[in-house]
């Protein structure tokens, strides 16, 4: 019997590793391809600026790559480390892989948007290339935060000792913790990238607007980040709450439902808030005197868009604490 559990843990770790880097590679692949596409277009418009565009493309792609590198690190650890042989550890390892895989998807795609738009902007307004590159770095770095949340949760799932907890329902709590942060990170990552892409377009069009655009970009990205923070909150509650052993599957199902509710529920509001930020920032540069009005309208629209992520969090909290 001991041997069988050991095989189960190894199998779960390998499965988690495959899921982590398999899903994690999607985001960076899409994001970097988008950047390269815009770089090609930029070079065809202004071949004499090919060096600047290429340099910016590579910096942007390196940032988009970081989410996939987090996934690679988690996958390597899952493959190479030795873990305790018990069934709840097996579930935690599979959950760690799923969390990191989904968590790297959005930030990889998102970081491609500012990088691509910055390449386009450099060929349009070569004089702005340094402020475009700087703002791109800030915007892309913010995109990566949700991947970092996923990595933190994945590491907590891998290295904390859960062996003293009863399998039912604590295994479901750990799996739900992975789903919550991982899925919610998809929306925030893509949304923050859209907002940062809008800021790049505005700086390229109106170089004097760089300060205002950076400030509005950070405000918009902060709102788009909220679903990822809600997801992290639900994950932390699920990781640290120890449930007494149960006979029935009701609590386990409720906890899984909580993770799915918050995880899936965070995707839409994250992308939507980011889209609102993209258009608002895009128009900031065309008409600078209405910058305050645009930022205000963006915030109102984003707040409405966030309402569904709050519903999802409420349902998750009810499923955790009331049921």
């Amino acid at each position: 019997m001991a041997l069988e559990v050991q095989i189960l843990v190894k199998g779960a770790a390998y499965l988690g590793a495959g899921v982590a880097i398999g899903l994690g590679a999607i985001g960076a692949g899409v994001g970097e391809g988008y950047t390269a596409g815009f770089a090609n277009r930029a070079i065809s418009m202004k071949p004499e600026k090919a060096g600047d565009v290429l340099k910016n493309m590579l910096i942007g792609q390196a940032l988009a790559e970081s989410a996939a590198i987090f996934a690679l690190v988690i996958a390597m650890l899952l493959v190479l480390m030795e873990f305790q042989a018990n069934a709840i550890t097996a579930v935690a390892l599979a959950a760690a892989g799923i969390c990191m895989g989904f968590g790297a998807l959005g930030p990889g795609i998102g970081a491609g948007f500012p990088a691509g738009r910055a390449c386009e902007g450099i060929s349009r307004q070569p004089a702005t290339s340094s402020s475009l590159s700087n703002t791109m770095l800030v915007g892309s770095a913010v995109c990566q935060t949700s991947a970092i949340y996923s990595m933190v949760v994945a590491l907590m799932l891998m290295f904390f000792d859960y062996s003293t907890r009863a399998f039912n329902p604590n295994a479901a709590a750990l799996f739900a913790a992975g789903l919550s942060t991982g899925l919610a990170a998809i929306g925030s990552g893509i949304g923050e990238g859209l907002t940062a892409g809008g800021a790049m377009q505005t700086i390229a069009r109106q170089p004097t607007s760089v300060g205002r655009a950076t400030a509005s970009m950070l405000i918009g990205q902060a709102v788009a980040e909220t679903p990822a923070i809600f997801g992290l909150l639900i994950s932390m509650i699920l990781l640290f709450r120890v449930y007494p052993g149960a006979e029935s599957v009701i609590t386990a199902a409720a906890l899984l439902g909580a993770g799915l509710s918050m995880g899936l529920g965070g995707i839409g509001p994250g992308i939507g808030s980011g889209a609102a930020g993209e258009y608002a920032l895009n128009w900031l540069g065309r008409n600078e005197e209405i910058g305050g009005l645009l930022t205000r309208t963006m915030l109102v629209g984003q707040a409405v868009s966030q309402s569904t992520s709050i519903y999802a969090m409420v349902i998750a909290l009810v499923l955790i604490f009331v049921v």
Partner: protein
Amino acid sequence: MDISGADIIRAVSLLGAGVAMGFGAIGPGIGEGYAAGRACEAIGRNPREAGLLTRTMLVGQAVSESTGIYALVVALLLIFVV
């Protein structure tokens, strides 16, 4: 451990509540954000109509929100009534 039919129904309805609210939140979230983005674009083109545009944006978002509220209602029914 033996699991009774009533337990399974209760467990599946709780899982279903999570799935309902999770998937149900995706559409309104993206849709309302898109509406907000287009409203910002329209205000950029014609700032004098900002009040009218904000009002129209909010009405459109309220309609888009309805499916999110349906998901919330169904989730609450699955948790507290079923």
